[in-house]
């Protein structure tokens, strides 16, 4: 059954890689009483090994104003120490924690969250202060015929709605040629962003991947530099760019999930190569150190238990092995949405289905 599912799996046809032995510590994170982890959409560790989880704990809810409908809540950011002890919450009751998508920690231990429904990327200092918001949450949401209620629509935005923030103020400006589908507007107005990464200079890369289909580059101060990509399947085009990572040379690896490939770009967005044969990459990460590895999860969809394996690769795409499969048990994965690989053989995986983070040790 397992072999069949791999064989028929999109893009997995040639990827019967050796199995890597591994262990899992599934009950690593201790939640305080009467607090619950929800879907563990985002997980990341800092330099001390503290673990951050950006989790979907409820539906975002809507309140009616006089003429518009406002959205609130739905996601929380928790911090744990390296032993899994609960440390605290960051950003509680802040603006735009609607549907968690990703959390990453930069080399200075700042914590960055990516929210797919509020379309915000927010940089927090290690002490929890807001250092820099990027993007803008739509002022109001449309309930009824013009869109879905928050939490129900899963951030889906119709093709061609690029850069259109409902109620978000002025349009994208006129005078230039119409942008390609998914190309978005120049600047940091996101449409369902999916992930964030940095190069050695601190430049910021954001995969704007649910509503748009582009990668946007900013300098370390948040100044917009450029973006690339549009919706499609050609090299340099994307179909739900779901996750991204950088290597030490500043190359950008984009998990182009809908096209069953990882695309590799240089620091300016010039297409270099693509890596196929590892399923539909949903979450990727690159380990640090002199010999970095690329990990990619061929996550199962939430309505199936097919696939779910994670691949370990050289940066050139050579598959070294794979481990795990979809499921609810320990050492199985339920729709992995993010992987942290700050240490090469010690991975943290955040799962949507099983409401948990597993600490994976590879042997």
């Amino acid at each position, binding site marked *: 059954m397992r072999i069949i599912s791999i064989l028929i799996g999109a893009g997995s046809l040639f990827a019967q890689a050796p199995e890597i032995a591994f262990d899992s510590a599934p009950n690593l994170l201790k939640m305080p009483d009467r607090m619950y982890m929800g879907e563990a959409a985002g997980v990341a560790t800092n330099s001390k090994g503290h673990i951050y989880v950006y989790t979907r704990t409820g539906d975002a809810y809507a309140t009616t104003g006089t*003429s518009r409908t406002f959205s609130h809540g739905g996601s929380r950011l928790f911090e744990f120490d390296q032993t899994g002890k609960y440390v605290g919450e960051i950003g509680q009751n802040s603006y735009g924690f609607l549907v968690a998508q990703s959390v990453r920690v930069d080399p200075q231990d700042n914590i960055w969250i990516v929210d797919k429904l509020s379309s915000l990327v927010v940089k927090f200092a290690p002490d929890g202060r807001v250092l820099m918001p990027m993007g803008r949450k739509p002022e109001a949401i449309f309930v009824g015929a013009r869109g879905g209620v928050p939490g129900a629509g899963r951030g889906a935005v119709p093709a061609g709605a690029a850069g259109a923030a409902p109620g978000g103020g002025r349009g994208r400006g006129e005078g230039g040629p119409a942008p390609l589908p998914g190309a978005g507007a120049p600047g940091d107005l996101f449409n369902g962003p999916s992930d964030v990464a940095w190069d050695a200079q601190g430049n910021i890369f954001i995969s704007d991947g649910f509503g748009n289909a582009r990668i946007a580059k900013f300098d370390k101060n948040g100044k917009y530099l450029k973006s690339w990509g549009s919706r499609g399947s050609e090299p340099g085009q994307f179909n739900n760019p779901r996750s991204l990572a950088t290597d030490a040379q500043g190359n950008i690896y984009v998990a182009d999930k809908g096209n069953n490939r990882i695309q590799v770009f240089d620091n300016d967005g010039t297409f270099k190569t693509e890596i196929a044969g590892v399923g539909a990459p949903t979450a990727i990460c690159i380990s640090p150190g002199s010999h970095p590895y690329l990990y990619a999860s061929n996550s199962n969809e939430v309505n199936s238990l097919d696939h779910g394996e994670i691949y370990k690769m050289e940066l050139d795409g050579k598959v070294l092995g794979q481990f795990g499969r979809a499921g609810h048990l320990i050492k199985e994965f339920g729709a992995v949405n993010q992987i942290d690989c700050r240490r090469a053989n010690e991975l943290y995986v955040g799962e949507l289905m099983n409401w948990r983070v597993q600490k994976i040790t590879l042997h």
Partner: protein
Amino acid sequence: MKKSQRICLAVLALLSMPNFFGQTLTRAQERAKAKAQNVPEIPYESAPNFLKLPTGVYFGEVVGVATNSKGHVFVYTRSYDTRLLEFDQAGKFVKEIGEGVYGFAFAHAVRVDSQDNIWAVDEGTNMIVKFSPEGKVLMVLGHRPESGEVPVTPGFGVAPPAAEPYTFNRQTDVAFDPQGNIFVSDGYGNSRVVKYDKNGRYITSAGSRGSEPGQLNLPHTLTADAKGNIYVGDRSNSRIQVFDNDLKLKTVYDQVGAPWAVCITPGPHQYLYSSNSNPDNNNSEIMAVTGEVYKMELDGTILGKFGKPGKQLGEFSTIHEMDCRSENEIYTAEINRWGVQKIVLHPKK
């Protein structure tokens, strides 16, 4: 290159309106850029980490800032819910005002009157709430529609329902003249300025949607001078319209871009500040030609400008309201920074 081609290129170059640096502006940039030319820059600095938030309290989009007679700073923010927070003059957190009050849904502006009362303008409830310095509700203007009776903001080109004396449609700001009369810019739905007496009784209103003199297209901010003249930031028309105390149009200033926020300093020599804010959707094309604040005489003479868009200290990320505490001390509320800056100007003497 043939001569005819050269002429052709020269004509093209003229048509494309090169700016000061010789770069060509797009049509959208031409529209957004302030018309004023060669305005001197005013040196300035921003106080770092001015406001100290208690642990677990976060600003969201900061849309309103105002100071009282003691220098306390009031911040009106769209956080998880809309909140009004008070800090002392050193930036230390003092208290929260109006937590959970019926008039808070989507913050837009806050102003402090000469008696230190705090006025919160909320465009999500169509209400203006007057709080005493202690935080007690003293008066409310407007009425929040009952649940289930939610009107719809008309689309562009669709006339809004007729404006009612005591009902707002996404009003934006409030101002006071020396007699305590109350002026409201109203707003996103309506296109008018309304005058009430100090007890909230309707006196008159002016304006309809359009671009003719006296008409308004998103009156987003307003302020009064010591003579009781009313300065209205007519944002989408990119002009400040000045009305007398009876709301008769006096003059128009259209050289300083789109006035997102205006304020007038106190004292014997008053100055008018106006922000041509960079767009709240962070569009980099428009951002390149906006984001500066102008200092003017009340007669519209431009004295200088300061600021540029960005998220670093001293840069502006969509100023939404300003408090002119004095000629050289300006507080900015910024949507895309999620914070307040205290700006100190150092104009050359």
